[in-house]
């Protein structure tokens, strides 16, 4: 593992997208209907594509290769938030996590766009264009489940209650965040970004009578995913998603 703060930042961003993308595509073939098979396949594919962008930036700084970073590390070297490694659960949890994660992207990408690391900032343009569709999708399902029959609403509420405390972990400070802030790689600290995100989450949930999910005083679990602390859920997922690479690191696909 590198100790370059910029490479570590790019890895954390990449791992979030890679691992959530791996979860999203598990809906392929088993979502509630065909359009949702396609939606989660497409969104998962986008997230993995975004991970490739961040892995490439990390690889340029460390002299590595994107695939080696994506698939050639031990589980405790991944820097994603624990939220994204959790199994998909039911539709309520899936939609809750999708919404909370994509709102986090929505507040984070503009900050990254202003980075003094210009290659990182430049890369956000395409990502922001593509993320529009993710948030539209999450909002559409949020509205539908919140206004749906009692079971839909109850499952959504339970999903939000389960996902929110771990979504806070998306704002656990990055490794060497002080240095990233000092040199302008990050224009806003994770803690301050968390406040913006809570505002965005509350703006979505309050009109639906679900605003009580937001707990502004809740701190990210520490040490958490940003420091390589993961759950058994990730060990299982990692084993599956790296199986081909570990069997033949030179494989092409």
């Amino acid at each position: 593992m590198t100790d370059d703060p910029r490479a570590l930042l790019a890895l954390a961003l990449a791992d979030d997208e890679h691992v959530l993308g791996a979860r999203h595509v598990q809906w392929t073939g088993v979502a509630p209907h065909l359009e949702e098979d396609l939606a989660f396949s497409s969104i998962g594919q986008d997230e993995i594509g975004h991970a490739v962008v961040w892995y490439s930036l990390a690889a340029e700084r460390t002299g590595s290769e994107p695939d080696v970073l994506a698939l050639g590390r031990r589980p405790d070297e991944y820097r994603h938030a624990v939220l994204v490694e959790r199994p998909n659960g039911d539709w309520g949890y899936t939609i809750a996590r999708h919404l909370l994660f994509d709102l986090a992207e929505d507040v984070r990408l503009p900050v990254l766009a202003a980075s003094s690391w210009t290659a990182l900032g430049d890369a956000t343009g395409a990502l922001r264009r593509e993320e529009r569709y993710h948030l539209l999708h999450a909002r559409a399902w949020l509205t539908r489940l919140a206004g749906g029959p009692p079971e839909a609403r109850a499952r959504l509420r339970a999903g939000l209650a389960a996902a929110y405390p771990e979504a806070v972990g998306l704002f656990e400070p990055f490794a060497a965040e002080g240095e990233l802030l000092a040199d302008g790689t990050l224009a806003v600290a994770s803690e301050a970004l968390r406040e913006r995100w809570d505002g965005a989450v509350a703006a979505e949930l309050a009109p639906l009578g679900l605003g009580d999910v937001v707990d502004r005083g809740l701190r990210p679990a520490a040490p958490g995913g940003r420091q390589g602390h993961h759950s058994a859920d990730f060990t299982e997922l990692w084993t599956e998603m790296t199986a081909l690479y570990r069997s033949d690191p030179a494989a092409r696909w």
Partner: protein
Amino acid sequence: MVSVTPLPSPADVRAALDMVPDPEMPPVSIGDLGMVVDVSVHGGQVDISLVPTFSGCPATAVIREDVARAVAALDGVEEVTVRFVRDVVWEPGRITAEGRRKLSEYGIAPPGSGQRLPSGPGLLQIGGAPPGVRCPLCGSRDTVTDSPFGPTPCRSANYCRACRNPFEAIKP
């Protein structure tokens, strides 16, 4: 007699790129889609910069190889590098007039057919309010977007109520 190998010009390279089919929409070329950002030629060395339509497009590896092969076949080309850049944002407006015409013939509504970002729960309501995207098959706007997530990241799934055919559209 001294034989002189002709050197390729950037125009020759661009003409070749206009002939490289997109792997997922073969009637349309890489050039037609506006994926070519820059071409530079230094003697027999050709450097090509491309932008993917979507970051997660799985066809980029195939496109890179197809482009390298097509350009390497030009007279005088000794070496080709193909790279994808991240500092350019692909937008449907990059598709050429020729590309729009070919897409329409292929049955995919090109940009400028009335696409708009869906909003609110309408995204999930199959059978939303017309006018929708102009049907590339019959020209009607009595159409609905079933889902913004079609068979590839850049295409949405639509249905024409006039000619009763499903069709795809380039996403806005």
